[in-house]
């Protein structure tokens, strides 16, 4: 018997996340609250008959979830919440007809987006949370969509992925995780900052790659190197590889690009925060490296 068939839903909420429509039915009020917080800007009055059904059910000692044909179960709320949330994100990505996904955390400073690009385990989530403590708005710690025409960034909100080590690092920074984390290990970006997300492109692109060093360092990288990094952090999508490369080249062209070698969390977050503020107030174009105007040009082999 499917989850849906067995469920006497206490609640029903509809969402449309960047074109992916689903109806969440659950008999577990606290889980409903978690998903409503996560997708609050995507609440929608969609046609419940045509939308995909997402079910989260508490039954006895276990929790079950279902999204379309996909199902999962866990003995704790956290496991089931993370399972359904992950399935919803994957379904959102698969449903894209036009927007390109980039594996990147996205934070906002005033009306400018900063993307922290890097592979899993690079430290994007922990750094993003540490930056939210410094006054920046965390929109996603994992993946964002980019409009190939306007280059506007559309972060997909996810429950923030913090492991035990990340929590210890944040606590050492005197960061107190909200109650929602303590109960279910489910932290929505809105739990950290409820300011609305502006519609804009990325003015600052930071590629995070280890290994972790004694001292954190930020070094400018060329726009072509950043475009190549963005390409390495995207997956199958609606555009061809060549079209993706063209979009990423345009994104890098309109941004200041840096490589971050992380050190301690506190020092790294301070360094990135200072960069964001410096960039925010820098005159347009001041980050672009110039070519010497007279005499021989500087020799830069390869990169």
């Amino acid at each position, binding site marked *: 018997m499917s989850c849906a068939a067995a469920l006497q839903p206490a609640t029903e909420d509809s969402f449309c996340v960047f074109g992916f429509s689903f109806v969440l039915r659950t008999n577990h009020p606290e889980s409903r609250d978690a998903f409503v917080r996560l997708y609050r800007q995507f609440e929608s009055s969609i046609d419940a008959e045509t939308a995909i059904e997402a079910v989260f059910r508490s039954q006895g000692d276990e929790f079950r979830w279902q999204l379309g044909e996909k199902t999962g179960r866990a003995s704790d709320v956290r496991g089931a919440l993370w399972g359904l949330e992950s399935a919803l994100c994957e379904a959102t990505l698969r449903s894209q007809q036009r927007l390109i996904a980039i594996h990147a955390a996205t934070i906002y400073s005033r009306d400018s987006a900063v993307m922290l690009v890097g592979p899993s385990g690079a430290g994007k989530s922990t750094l993003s949370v540490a930056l939210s403590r410094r006054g920046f708005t965390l929109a996603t710690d994992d993946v964002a969509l980019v409009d190939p025409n306007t280059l506007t960034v559309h972060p997909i909100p996810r429950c923030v992925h913090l492991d035990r080590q990340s929590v210890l690092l944040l606590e050492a920074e005197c960061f107190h995780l909200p109650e929602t984390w303590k109960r279910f290990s489910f932290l929505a970006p809105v739990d950290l900052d409820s300011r609305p997300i502006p519609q804009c492109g990325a003015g600052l692109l930071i590629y995070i790659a280890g290994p972790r060093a004694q001292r954190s360092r930020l070094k400018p990288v*060329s726009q072509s190197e950043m475009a*190549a990094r963005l390409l390495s952090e995207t997956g199958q999508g609606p555009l061809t590889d060549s079209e993706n490369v063209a979009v990423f080249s345009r994104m890098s062209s309109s941004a200041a690009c840096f490589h971050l070698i992380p050190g301690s969390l506190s020092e790294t977050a301070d360094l990135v925060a200072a960069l964001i503020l410096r960039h925010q107030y820098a005159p347009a174009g001041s980050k672009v490296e110039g070519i010497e105007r007279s005499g021989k*040009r500087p*020799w830069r082999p390869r990169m």
Partner: protein
Amino acid sequence: MGPEPSLQEESAPAGRSVLIRRVDVDVHGLPDRSRLLFDPSGRISIPVSESAGRIWDLCDGNHSIDQIVDDLAATYDAERPQIDHDARAFLAELERHGFVERQSSFQ
């Protein structure tokens, strides 16, 4: 692991050896003068500096490797042996990834 292969270590072919860039490689010029070379068939991207971009331009079938080095030495502010070493290493990388193809032209 040994050092990166360089064109200096390869035996010289008879006649004049030239490297020709593949026409189906996408080339994106960026405002900071760097370029992104992308091979759609192999999904390989190579970001290059303005200097390396000049080397790419000279892989047109009309310049031998020595002539490429001559051009670079006249254009860029570095010692010729350094430019020669770096240029050959970059050309070897391009050839290894299949971005350029070697042709021998007998004159």
